[in-house]
C-alpha cells in the first residue's frame, strides 16, 4: 500500500507523503497458546501510519485489532500470547530487535496508548495527579512537586475544569468522559509521536463520545502525531480517519482511504459492515446483519476465512486463501472477487 494519492482531507496528509512512515508493521503474527489449542490472533498483518495521519483499524471483537496494537506497544500478555513473526518498524528501528529496557523507554514516551475503559484502566488507589505525574518522574526524573505541577498543566490541556483542585482526586470521583480525558492526558504527557487509541469512546455516553473524539483529533492535529484508532464503530471513523484497515479473523481484508471505502467497499465483509449501519431514510425496514458468527480462531475456516458468511461465496473461496490484491492507489482487498464487489457497490 502506497500513498501516491494525497487524501483530500485538510489533516496535513500532503506534508506526510514524502516521509517514511512513522510506524510500519510488516507481516505481524501473534499466537495465543491455550489449552484449547493455538489461536492465531494476528495472522500476517501489515499496516503503516505516517506522522499527522490517522489510521482506523476496524473489526469485530476477536478480529485481532487490539492484539496487533498490544504487540506494537509491547504489552502483549505473554504467556499466553506469543509474537511468532513479522517486524514492527518504528522511526526506522525494528522494535522487536530492541532490548527490553530500550523498549520500555519508548513506551509511554514515544508511543502511548489510550484504553477503552478508563475506570478500570486507571489505578483506583492512586490519585490522578500521581498517575499523571508518574510519567514525568519516571521518564524525566523530575521531582514530585514539579511532576504535580505538570500534571495540572496536562489536565488543563485536556480541558478538565478546576484542574488544580482536582489533581488530588481519585479516578472514581470523575465522570466517564473526564476519566477518558485523563487517559488522553496521560498518553500525551511526554509528547509521543504515535498514539494508539483502543476503542477510546466505546465505554462513553454518545454525547460525550463526540467531545472526547473531537478532543483527540484536535490534539493529534496540533501535535502532528500519528494516530491509530481501533474501533468497531464506523460512525466514529468517518470524521477523523485518513485511512481505514478492516480486520477479520486476524487478517487485514481491506485497506483504503476513508472516503473511497465508504463510497465503494472492495470486500464483501466491509460491505456487510456498511450495510449494517442503521439509516434514518430506511426507517421501518429490517436492519441488515452479516449472517453467522466470527470464526473461532483455533479453527479458522480454510480458504478465505470469511467464506462461510459471504454472500458472494464460490468454490475457489473455500479452498484458496485470497492474497491482498492491489485494488487501486492506496487500496487493497483480500477478496478473489474484489472487482465484482467494487462494481456492485457503485
Amino acid at each position: 500500500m502506497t500513498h501516491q494519492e494525497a487524501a483530500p482531507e485538510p489533516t496535513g496528509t500532503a506534508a506526510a507523503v514524502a516521509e517514511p512512515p512513522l510506524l510500519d508493521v510488516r507481516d505481524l503474527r501473534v499466537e495465543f497458546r491455550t489449552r484449547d489449542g493455538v489461536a492465531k490472533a494476528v495472522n500476517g498483518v501489515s499496516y503503516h501510519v505516517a506522522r499527522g495521519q490517522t489510521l482506523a483499524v476496524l473489526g469485530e471483537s476477536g478480529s485481532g485489532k487490539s492484539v496487533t496494537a498490544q504487540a506494537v506497544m509491547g504489552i502483549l500478555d505473554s504467556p499466553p500470547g506469543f509474537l511468532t513473526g513479522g517486524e514492527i518498524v518504528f522511526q526506522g528501528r525494528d522494535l522487536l530487535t530492541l532490548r527490553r529496557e530500550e523498549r520500555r523507554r519508548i513506551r509511554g514516551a514515544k508511543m502511548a496508548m489510550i484504553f477503552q475503559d478508563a475506570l478500570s484502566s486507571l489505578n483506583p488507589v492512586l490519585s490522578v495527579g500521581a498517575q499523571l505525574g508518574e510519567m514525568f518522574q519516571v521518564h524525566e526524573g523530575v521531582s514530585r512537586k514539579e511532576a504535580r505541577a505538570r500534571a495540572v498543566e496536562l489536565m488543563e490541556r485536556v480541558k478538565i475544569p478546576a484542574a488544580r483542585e482536582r489533581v488530588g482526586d481519585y479516578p472514581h470521583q470523575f465522570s466517564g468522559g473526564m476519566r477518558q480525558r485523563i487517559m488522553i492526558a496521560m498518553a500525551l504527557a511526554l509528547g509521543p509521536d504515535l498514539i494508539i487509541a483502543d476503542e477510546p469512546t466505546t465505554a462513553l455516553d454518545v454525547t460525550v463520545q463526540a467531545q472526547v473524539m473531537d478532543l483527540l483529533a484536535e490534539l493529534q492535529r496540533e501535535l502532528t502525531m500519528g494516530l491509530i484508532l481501533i474501533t468497531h464503530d464506523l460512525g466514529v471513523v468517518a470524521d477523523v480517519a485518513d485511512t481505514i484497515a478492516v480486520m477479520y479473523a486476524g487478517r487485514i481484508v481491506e485497506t483504503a482511504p476513508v472516503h473511497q471505502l465508504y463510497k465503494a467497499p472492495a470486500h464483501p465483509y466491509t460491505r456487510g459492515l456498511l450495510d449494517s449501519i442503521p439509516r434514518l431514510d430506511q426507517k421501518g425496514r429490517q436492519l441488515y446483519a452479516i449472517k453467522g458468527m466470527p470464526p473461532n480462531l483455533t479453527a479458522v475456516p480454510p480458504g478465505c476465512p470469511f467464506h462461510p458468511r459471504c454472500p458472494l461465496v464460490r468454490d475457489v473461496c473455500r479452498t484458496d486463501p485470497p492474497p491482498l490484491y492491489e485494488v487501486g492507489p492506496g487500496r487493497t482487498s483480500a477478496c478473489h472477487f474484489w472487482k465484482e464487489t467494487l462494481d456492485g457497490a457503485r
Partner: protein
Amino acid sequence: MGRYVIRRLLQMIPVFIGSTFLIFFMVYALGDPVAAMFGERAPDPATAAQIRRELYLDAPLWKQYLHYMGQIFQGNFGTAFNGQSVIELMVSAFPVTLRLTVVAVVIEMVVGVVLGVFSGLRRGRGIDTSVLVLTLVVVSIPTFVSGYLLQFLFGVQWGWAAPSVSPEVPLNELLLPGLVLALVSLAYVTRLTRTSIAENVRADYVRTAVAKGLPRHRVITRHLLRNSLIPVVTFIGTDIGALMGGAIVTERIFNIHGVGYQLYQGILRQNSPTVVGFVTILVLVFLLANLLVDLLYAVLDPRIRYA
C-alpha cells in the same frame, strides 16, 4: 472520618459487654472458685461462706458481673489466689506477649508477602507449586508439633537459637518462638497474597502501568502490590488479636511468661480473676485491632470513604 470512628467505638460497647459477660458466666458459673482455692482439701463450710460473702460471690450472677465491671473501670482487676494482684500479672505478661506478637507479625508480613508476590507472579510454575505445597504442609501441622520440632532442631540439635527464652525476653531470643507463632498465619498470608496478586496482575490498570513505560519493579510495588495488599491487611489486623491470645502453646513450649502462660496457669488452677481479667483485655485488643483494620482500609483504598 471522625464520626465514623465514634460510631465504631460505640458499636464496640455491646460487643464488649456481651463477650465479657459470656466469659464471666462460663468461668464463674461452671466452677466453684472457693472450692478451687482450697485445692484438694474440702473447705470448712463456715469459712467458705465467709469468703463467699467477702468476695461478693453470694450475690446473683448479674450483680456479680456488674460489680466486677465497676471494679475493672476503676482499674481493679482483683487479686489472684496466690495474693498477687491481677494488674501486676498483666503488667508483667502483656509487654512480653506484645513483643512476641510484633516479632511474629513482622515475620508473617515480610516473609508471607514476599513469598506470595513471587508465587503469584509465577502462577502455575515451579516456585508457585512448591510454595503452595509448603504452605499446605505448614497449615496442616499443629503448633505444638512444629514448635517442639523447631525447638529441638534449632535450639538443641544445631544450637542456632536459645531453646527457651530468658526472663528478660530479649528480641533475638524471640525470633524462633516468633516464627513458630507466625507459621500458620504466614502460610495464610502467603496464599492470600498469591491469589490477590495473580488476580490483579491481569487487571487493566496494571496493563496501563506497563504501557506507560514504567520499570517492572515500579509496576509491581506501586501499582500491583498496593491494590493486592488490601485483603492481606485485613487478615493481619484480625490476626494480631488471635496471635496475642493464641500464644498459649508457643509460650508454653519456649517458657515465655506472657499472656498465654498466665492464662494457662489461671485455667489450670481455676484462678478465675486472672482468666476473666486477661480475657477481657484480649477482647479489647481484638476489638481495637479490628477498628484499626477498618481505618487502614480507607487509607489503602480511597474508594472506601467513611461518611
